[in-house]
């Protein structure tokens, strides 16, 4: 049967044509198409990966932002607290210092007052002494105006001294 016996002429031509067909398609056809398609699919896969990465990064950044905001808030609170503490301590210190100063001034004033008093007293005493001496002098001058009285006084004084000795 000719159906199942391969004909040589047809086999020859088929091999030749198929070889040419294969050569043409393998050189100019399929590799170009498949490499382009592969490249494109690689690019799409890469784009998807990059989008995913960007998304992830964005999420990370948002997270970071929130964290930074939180940190800033904490810092703010801390600074405020610190400031109020400083204020309180400064006020307290100032108060203490003022008190101290007042005390010191008071003490100073007191001593000064005391000193003034003393010197005033001294002055007064001296004044009184001078006055009294003056008075005494005047009195004496008046009393010892006559001789009798002078002699009486001297005797009295001698008596006194004698009594004492």
């Amino acid at each position, binding site marked *: 049967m*000719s*159906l199942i016996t391969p*004909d*040589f*002429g047809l086999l020859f031509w*088929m091999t030749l044509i198929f070889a040419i067909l294969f050569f043409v398609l393998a050189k*100019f056809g*399929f590799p170009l198409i498949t490499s382009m398609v592969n490249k494109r699919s690689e690019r799409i896969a890469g784009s998807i990966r990059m989008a995913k990465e960007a998304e992830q990064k964005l999420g990370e950044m948002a997270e970071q932002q929130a964290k930074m905001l939180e940190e800033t808030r904490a810092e703010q609170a801390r600074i405020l607290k610190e400031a109020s503490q400083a204020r309180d301590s400064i006020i307290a210190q100032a108060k203490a210092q003022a008190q101290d100063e007042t005390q010191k001034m008071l003490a100073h004033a007191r001593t000064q007052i005391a000193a003034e008093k003393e010197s005033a007293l001294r002055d007064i005493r001296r004044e009184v002494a001078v006055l009294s001496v003056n008075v005494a002098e005047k009195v004496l001058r008046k009393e010892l105006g006559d001789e009798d009285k002078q002699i009486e006084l001297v005797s009295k004084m001698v008596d006194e001294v004698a009594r004492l000795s």
Partner: protein
Amino acid sequence: MRRIGIILLTIALLLPACAVTAHAATTAEKGGGLDMKEYLFGHIGDSYGWHVTTINGHHVTIHLPVILHSSTSGWHAFSSKHIEEGEVYEGFRLAATGEKHEGKLVEETADGLVKPLDISITKNVAGIMFSSLLLILIVLSTARWYRKHDAMEEAPQGFAGVMEMVITMIEDDIIKDSIGKDYKRYSPYLLTAFFFIFINNLLGIVPFFPGGANITGNIAVTLALAMCTFIAINVFGNKHYWKDILWPDVPVFLKAIPLMPVIEIMGMFTKPFSLMVRLFANILAGHIMLLGVVAMIFLTASLGPAINSGLSVVVVIFGVFMDVLELLVAFLQAYVFTMLSAVFIGLSRQEPETE
């Protein structure tokens, strides 16, 4: 709307029946019933000229070049119109029915009929040339799209898009999966084989010129394809593949006889042989089925117009069904041939399993 559809369908189904009845009547007038053998083999076999159609008893045939080499008279090249009706030309004539080398050109010598070396451009060769040119046109026009466009930025649309889809499907689903890491070396061959078989299967279904040649249903064609796969399997097979054939991992007495190597070496040839026969038989069977269904119209012509037209309606419906089935087979056989080739190649590239 539905009623109009039914009326149109009825008319459409009756039309071919009328035409066929008329044709059958003319055939009957000529006094010849249908020569089933000539009818079948004329369509599925090869011939020196390409018979396109017959108009009013006049054959419209495309004459193809006949190229012969006779051991006595050397090279001959002439048009097939000279030997069409069995006449002798330059010492050659078509062997008649019942003779040796029936249907082929033979030379009458002193030793009787001798078949010369025959490399004529026959109907099938012309068909292969046509389909190959068509395929080159299709693939290169698709490739041209990629040259002209930046494929990184856009995907092709229209025809190039369809081609890209099919190529990607074959490469990703069959070639990559079956062969593995160095699939790139084989993918041009397997893609060429797929598209060659597919386009020839499709052209084989087309009933008029330039389709209709039974190319993939011819054993010489499938033999050439199977040989290519055989080469792809064995020439690039790795060490592990050859070791598995010549010294497989079986008890020594099986190799010493040597039973296993003989079986394995037979296996080397049965794989492409099965590829060859599968494609050949499937496509040939499809053609014979279709031709047989259509022949029913002519065979029942003698049974009277009532039976003939009634059966014609059935035959047309059945013929449409068969055509659709053949479309599926056309794709399926191309797919199967490519897939099995890829699987066999993949087996020859397998690395030994590391334990």
